[in-house]
């Protein structure tokens, strides 16, 4: 008798710890100061973006440098829902996901035509095209951007309830709502990625990444797998983008489609933490947040150092910090490796 599993003792413990952390995260706004909630919002949204990039690049081998397209279009779709259609900002986040999904179809169509590494620049071009087109949209402020109207931000669904529940001002209650949504998105994204990687589709994805032709020869529909993963990641990225801009409440094409904010940072988080592992971005975002808090005031020097750090990581520890930890200890919190377990028949009744 045998059995194939990805479960280990460490993963069971990690799973329980993760559930406990989520529970703590949910009740945190009851006693945490507002600044911590805001920091956690930043960490959770960057973590989600990094996990999504890690999914397509690290697990899928599709190195996108155009993720800012989905953040930007998601944010703008949410703004359009609020300003042009009078939607509440929170449900309008869903419009962001939809818009990113719709944009991902032509982007995948064009970028998948490009050989190997040129895929990366192809996604960048589409992101630029999207930014330039959006900058022509005069009703949403054109090139200079616009803000969410005060009426829309003042009565977001649920904010009053949260304000009464925790005895907060409206602005702080909005932060709490955004934080909960970010927590929800982060947990849902990571759970979905983990479930995907443990499924047959995840195995197919890894096979396509490692050897496209070999994967096809054993019957994996490489195109279909890539399309599914790319579209799903784009949709989620759009939701995150819309959520970030519900919190920011002010948008401009240059900020919403910023390569630095939504792609460079995200790539650095994944690279430093460890590409191709779920644990990587978690560790990476904590390191990134620490660096950001300590050095962000140094502006360009800080970015220069981040770039150099990313290069050094790729040269000397290409699998990132988590890769180093894994090599030393063999620890894997969210294992996706399938192991064969032989069950001793004699011990069975």
């Amino acid at each position, binding site marked *: 008798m045998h059995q194939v599993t990805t479960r280990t003792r460490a993963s069971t413990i990690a799973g329980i710890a993760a559930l406990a952390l989520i529970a703590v995260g949910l009740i945190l706004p009851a006693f945490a100061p507002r600044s911590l909630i805001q920091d956690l919002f930043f960490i959770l949204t960057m973590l989600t973006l990094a996990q999504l990039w890690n999914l397509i690049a690290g697990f899928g081998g599709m190195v996108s440098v155009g993720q800012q397209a989905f953040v930007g279009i998601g944010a703008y779709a949410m703004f359009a829902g609020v300003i042009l259609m009078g939607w509440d900002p929170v449900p309008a986040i869903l419009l962001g996901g939809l818009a990113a999904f719709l944009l991902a179809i032509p982007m995948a169509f064009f970028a998948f035509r490009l050989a190997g590494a040129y895929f990366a620049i192809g996604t960048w071009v589409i992101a*630029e095209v999207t930014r330039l087109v959006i900058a022509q949209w005069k009703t949403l402020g054109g090139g200079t951007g616009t803000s969410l109207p005060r009426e829309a931000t003042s009565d977001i669904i649920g904010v009053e309830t949260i304000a009464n529940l925790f005895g907060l001002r409206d602005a702080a209650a909005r932060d709490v709502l955004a934080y909960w949504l970010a927590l929800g998105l982060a947990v849902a994204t990571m759970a979905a990625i983990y479930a995907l990687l443990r499924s047959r589709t995840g195995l197919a994805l890894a096979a396509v990444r490692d050897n496209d032709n070999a994967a096809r020869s054993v019957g994996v529909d490489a195109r279909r797998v890539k399309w599914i993963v790319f579209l799903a990641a784009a949709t989620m990225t759009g939701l995150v983008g819309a959520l970030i801009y519900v919190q920011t409440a002010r948008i401009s094409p240059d900020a919403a489609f910023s390569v630095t904010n939504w792609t460079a940072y995200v790539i650095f988080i994944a690279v430093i933490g460890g590409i191709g592992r779920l644990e990587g971005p978690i560790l990476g975002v904590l390191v990134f947040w620490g660096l950001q808090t300590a050095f962000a005031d140094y502006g360009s020097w800080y970015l220069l150092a981040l*770039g150099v750090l990313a290069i050094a990581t790729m*040269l000397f520890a290409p699998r990132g910090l988590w890769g180093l930890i894994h090599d030393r200890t063999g620890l894997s919190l969210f294992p996706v490796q399938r192991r064969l377990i032989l069950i001793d028949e004699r011990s069975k009744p």
Partner: protein
Amino acid sequence: MIWLDVLVQGILLGGLYALFAAGLSLVFGIMRLVNLAHGDLIVFAAFAILLITATLGLNPFLAALLAAPLMFAVGWALQRFVLNRVLGKDILPPLLVTFGLSVALQNGMLEVFSADSQRLSVGALESASINLGIVTVGTLPLLTFASAVAAIFLLNRIFYTTALGRAFRAVSDDPTTASLMGLNPKSVFAIATGLAMVIVTLAALYLGMRANFDPSIGPARLLYAFQAVIIGGLGSLWGTLAGGAIIGVAQTFGAQINPEWQILAGHIAFLVVLLIRPRGLFPRAVD
């Protein structure tokens, strides 16, 4: 007549884009490496030329002549000490290293040279023009285009008629067999990147003389270069000239209709070509 004028301006602008593209195409052709910092290296070379003109009081053309061997050394060292270590079957590490380099270079230049716009000044040549009867063209754009043609011609000569070119082709086709024949692929790669940086210097010279530049404009140059390469067809250097011209013409026509559409028009021309001929106009490489 205005449209003929726009067309000619566009084709000449394409010469500049072909210069951007030639270095990218060379490096990709030989080692399948896409250098995401290519645009920032062009801007870096432009600052190097600017620095030499400012300190030695030289004409930009002479300054570029001095900058070229320096840039060759930069390219050689970059390949030898950084990029060679990450080249392999997996395309992810070189992409991420060059992306990190792009961010680092941009911000390093921002600190050293500030965000101010700069220009390489060549006096009367900037506004000089030649009357060709039906159209009047700027001397500098014409010189750019002629330099692009000359650079591509020379690169092709190197590639197909010299021992170095044979080495380039050999390591490109099969590095293992090439190393059995006594070539060291890594040294050949380093020379190739050095050579690409010489072309980058030439591109930077014309970029700086024709328009303002600042540390942030690198990525956009990368995109133009990339589009010219893809439109031309992978592996074809003359193709990049055609690709550059198509982007250039699309941009000048777009700008003629509405100045805000200049860049967008170039991108859209690229997407249209990608839609109709995904392998470009003159594809050579099979991968």
